Structures are given as C-alpha cells and as structure tokens.
C-alpha cells in the first residue's frame, strides 16, 4: 500500500456518524436507537448545505456522540 499522508487529518470529513448498526451492535437495540443517527444526519445535512460552520458542526456532533456513548 502506498502511504499518502504521514499523519491523518483530524477533522470529520467522510464519516459524520457511526454506521446504522452501531447501536444494534453495542446494545442489541433495534430501531428506537436510530434517534442519534437521525440527529447526526440532520447536522451533516446542515453542514453540507453551508448552514453550519465546521466548528459548530463538530461541537454539536461531539455532544450527540458523547450522549450516545454514555448510554451504552
């Protein structure tokens, strides 16, 4: 494999939310666990449309993920 960068960038770019199956994998829960993914989808949509700054997007996203992690 060819290394393109020695150090990875840190900002979210391609994967704004965990895979849909993440909650299922961690907790065995089904559809009710979709809410955090929905929130992240909404945030991503706002960011992609230029309605959120990157900093605000990252901050809100971190809040959703922290809440998610605390629950599981």
């Amino acid at each position, binding site marked *: *494999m*060819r290394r393109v960068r020695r150090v990875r960038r*840190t900002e979210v*770019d391609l*994967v704004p939310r965990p*895979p*849909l199956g993440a909650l*299922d*994998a961690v907790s065995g829960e089904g559809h009710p666990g979709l809410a955090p993914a929905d929130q992240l989808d909404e945030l991503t949509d706002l960011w992609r449309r230029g309605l959120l700054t990157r900093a605000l997007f990252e901050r809100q996203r971190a809040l959703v993920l922290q809440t*998610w992690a605390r629950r599981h």
Partner: protein
Amino acid sequence: MGPGTPVRVEHGPIDTDDVNPDLVEYVVVVTPDVASLATLVPALADLVADGQIRLLDVAVAVRGDDGAVEVHEVEAVEILTGLRDVEGEVGGLLSQEDVATAGHALRPGTAGLVVLVESRWAEPLSEAARGVGGHIVGGERIPPGWVADALVQRADADDQERS
C-alpha cells in the same frame, strides 16, 4: 490463500480522476481482538486482486472496555504487515475522527478494520444508471438483527396468507 500468504505487489498512486465517487463506501470489519485482524488480510488482498474493490484507505479501530475508540495506523499493528503488499492507499482520505466515528460500531473490547473502498463490482450498475442520466445515490448496510426480524415477519405473513 491463507494468512501470511504473499499477495500481488503493485505500488503506485491511484489516479484520483479514475475513482468513481458513486462507488466509494466504508466497511467496518470487526474481530474479537487485534490479533484476529490478521485473518482478514488475505481476503482483502483477494478482493483487490480480483478487481472487486479498490482500497482507498485503511485504519484500525480498537474499542476499549470503557467504550473509548483508539485509532491505529496499519503500519503500527505488526500482525497486519501483509497489508503492506496489497495494492492501495492509506492515510489520504479518512480522518482520525472519521475512523473513530466508524469505530462506534465495535463492541467494547473488540477491534476492527475501517476500510474505505471503491466498490468496483458495482461499476456496471453505475454505468447503466449514468447512461440514462442517473447514478447510484447511496446505500447502507442493515444491522443483521433487523434483517432477521424482517425475514421472520415475512415468513409469518406468508404462513398467514397460506392458512
């Protein structure tokens, strides 16, 4: 091809103009521990060699018992040395945060490869869609438990229709 079997060696940059953006997706493959990740390398190498996928980036995510996700480069994981001989690129597209986010799919205490691929197998479908002005717009791997539930529900519905 078993673990540790040499694979095709072909280094060189992937031509970014040649990547079909409609076909790029990430896959998280989880194993019970870091050591087990080595068993994935030959399969990954075969998929690349067969032209099914093109590797655009790879990283390792390890989820601790406390739920925290650590990101490691493949070069830092000794048992993944076989990946060095696989054609592809590493480090250029997924950010640290991307890999950590994808790593939320891991159960605490497990490890996984986060692989960004161009799914070459879908190229004919993409071409067909583009031929009529369309394109592949997205997709999502469905959690297995949901699929199992849906299959049971379908079977139950079939039974009810027959009775």
